């Protein structure tokens, strides 16, 4: 009989299933093992392994007897094959410079417990799991509980340590004594967990092995025969790189959380760009557009020799569409739109408005516009109701317009301005005054009437153009919160003029000048 036909005839010599557990015991005075060491050892034996901790791993070793052990073992029962695999695992650990406990059994639970309880190699004959575990001290439960009990089955109040303490209080010394307890009585005293702990004590698996997936790298690189200099050819290359990555992401139900584009230039410099994506994206066109827009905004200094794209994966987005709500732009559409708008207008010019907790007139902040909006099933009522009239709105001049105001007893009678577009006229109706001031405590110099640096700069820049000087007026309170620290004190009036316009004007008390702050429209 040839060797091949003998293999087929003999079939699997290992009990099915069969698990090996490798445990690296802590050694006094030596550092903890490297996190990837056990993974490396396991990957050398089987693709089906589960990492419990850095020092503990379970391996599904079914079928390995065909590759490990002598030909004589193939004709024997499963135990010699298991021993051969265990010895091979020990040798692999020693080759990596660590001392390991290895246990092989038909159940993963028995192998896990024995790997903790006994040094060296332990092989349990099929069907002997409960008998072998019977002599193991019950204290071992506290060491393995974290990796064998699913989180749902443990609660904060009755954790593994407490349970082990309870068993000790009950004078249980070995797992065999726990396994021998009447199951009904145990469950009546400590609940459903009683049966779970008893199954563990007998070496029965309470859940299947969940294979650890190796970290998948979503990366692609392309070395160009001829350097490229320009966005259009780069677009084609990026598409070619991103398409297989997108397929890979889709297979794994992943989306891109971040996109790293590294460009090796002909000058041997490296131009790296990193894009944090607002939502998991795997659409090739969206990713390409975002990368191109970013590179357009930050172009490389020389032609490109090599392009590398790396994607940081994140779990995919699950979307439940409905026919009963209005469609909203997808996060991909909004991400692309915001990137395009940022390239056209500037990133600081787009977003969602946000009020600031201040009394400063016109102060506001800009927030990033969210790319994910939930559809609204019920319309939100207008506050107050939709029957109420529209609120009067103000168009605010970001830089107040210097105005000439004739006032009597502080009340404006005529408002004009030298600025084009603000003809002005006599005041038909006026409402006010409204006094407002703030931040005087933050700027002592301005409070005392001394011109600030900003005021001086304004004076230098516009000298001689305005009689009422915007010259001595500091830059209008900007919208950025960190700049809203200069003092202000003003008296506001809302005036309807003879030309039909309604303005909000104010008298700057600090600089004794009138300005148009906004237009009611």
């Amino acid at each position, binding site marked *: 009989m040839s060797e091949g036909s003998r293999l087929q005839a003999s079939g699997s010599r290992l009990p099915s299933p069969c698990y090996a557990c490798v445990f690296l015991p802590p050694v006094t005075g030596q550092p903890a093992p490297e996190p990837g060491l056990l993974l490396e050892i396991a990957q050398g034996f089987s693709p089906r392994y589960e990492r419990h901790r850095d020092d503990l791993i379970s391996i599904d070793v079914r079928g390995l007897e065909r590759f490990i052990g002598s030909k004589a073992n193939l004709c024997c029962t499963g135990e010699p094959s298991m021993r051969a695999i265990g010895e091979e695992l020990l040798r692999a650990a020693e080759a990596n410079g660590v001392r390991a406990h290895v246990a092989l059994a038909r159940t993963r639970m028995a192998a896990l417990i024995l790997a903790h309880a006994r040094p060296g190699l332990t092989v349990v004959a099929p069907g002997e799991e409960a008998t072998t575990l019977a002599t193991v001290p019950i204290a071992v439960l506290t060491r393995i509980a974290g990796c064998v009990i699913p989180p749902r089955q443990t609660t904060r109040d009755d954790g593994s340590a407490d349970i082990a303490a309870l068993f000790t209080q009950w004078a249980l010394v070995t797992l065999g004594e726990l396994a021998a307890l009447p199951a009904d009585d145990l469950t009546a005293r400590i609940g459903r967990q009683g049966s779970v702990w008893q199954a563990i004590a007998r070496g029965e698996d309470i859940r299947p092995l969940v294979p650890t997936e190796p970290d998948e790298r979503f990366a692609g690189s392309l070395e160009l025969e001829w350097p490229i200099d320009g966005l259009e050819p780069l677009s084609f290359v990026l598409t070619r790189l991103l398409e297989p990555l997108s397929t890979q992401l889709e297979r794994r139900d992943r989306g891109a959380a971040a996109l790293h584009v590294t460009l090796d230039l002909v000058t041997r410099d490296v131009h790296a760009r990193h894009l944090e994506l607002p939502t998991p994206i795997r659409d090739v066109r969206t990713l390409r557009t975002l990368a191109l827009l970013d590179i357009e905004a930050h172009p490389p200094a020389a032609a490109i020799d090599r392009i590398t794209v790396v994607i940081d994966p994140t779990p995919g987005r699950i979307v439940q569409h409905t026919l009963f709500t*209005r*469609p*909203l*732009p997808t996060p991909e*559409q*909004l991400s692309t*739109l915001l990137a*395009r*708008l940022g390239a*056209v*207008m500037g990133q600081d*010019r*787009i*977003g*969602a*408005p*946000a*009020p600031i907790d201040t009394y400063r007139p*016109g102060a506001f902040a*800009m927030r990033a*516009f969210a790319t994910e*909006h939930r*559809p*609204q099933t019920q*319309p*939100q*009522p*207008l506050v107050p109701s*939709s029957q*109420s*009239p*529209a*609120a*009067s*709105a*103000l*168009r*605010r*001049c*970001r830089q107040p317009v210097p105005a000439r105001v004739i006032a009597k007893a502080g009340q404006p009678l005529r408002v004009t301005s030298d*600025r*084009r*577009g603000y003809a002005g006229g006599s005041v038909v*109706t*006026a*409402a*006010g005054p*409204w006094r407002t001031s703030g931040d005087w405590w933050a700027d002592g110099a301005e409070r005392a009437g001394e011109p600030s640096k900003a005021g001086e700069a304004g004076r230098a820049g516009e000298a001689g153009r305005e009689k009422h000087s915007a010259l001595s007026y500091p830059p209008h309170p900007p919208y950025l919160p960190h700049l809203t620290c200069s003092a202000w004190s003003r008296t*506001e*009036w*809302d005036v*309807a003029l003879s030309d*039909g*316009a*309604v303005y*909000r004007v104010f008298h700057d008390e600090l600089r004794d000048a009138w300005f148009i702050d*906004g*237009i*009611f*429209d």
Partner: protein
Amino acid sequence: MALARAALESLLRTRQLDKTLTTALPIDLPGDEYASGASGVDELDARLGGGLPRGQLSEIVGSRSSGRLSLLLHMAAVATRRGELVAIVDALDMLDVASLEAAGVVLDRLLWIRGHVVINPGMSRELNQRAMEQALRALALVLQAGNFGLVVLDLAEAPIEIVSRLPFTTWLRLQRMVEGSQTVAMLVGCTPIARSSGGLTVKLGAEGWGPGAGDVRRALFMGFDVEARVVRARARGQDDAPARFATKGHVNV
């Protein structure tokens, strides 16, 4: 033959299929929010046949202080509270966040694009023209992205010369972009410039304004009495009477 054609057109209208296939105008279905976007002002909506048509370029025009922005923000508030996204291309960067809040706009659903156009360009007219083109590009990008409920280009205070220098094909291109979508595209300006054939022009004029009373906790300015007239509303202008509504001031504290 004529009967068959009339029957086909009737069927197309009933099923709301592509309106370009019919020679007659579509039947108005008042209250159909998928056909029109309500402005939130009942009297005006009645004149508009339910609201401003979706998939069309409409206009709000009027002189300074005629209530254009007040109406616009009210529309934005109503749209955002319906769950729609609203984009405002604020060409001159004059929006006031306090006014947005007072109008009841859901700020998270408002995409604010702040332009660089200035009222008084001085010597830098070319820069102003470029800023205008940027604003139009931004508007085109938003329309192309699609699925916004209301998209507005606010040119109300823009110098008339830079608006008039824009080629008329600009507006035709924008109209083609918005056609067939669920978006109400809106221009706000001084004079009608770009209304599409299916869109509407709402001309506003303030009839009066009220100053605040002596109570300092009230608004300084109490609001407009606005007269809104629908200009050139094809197939909707059965009633030429203007709609009247008042705006209210908001508390200034």
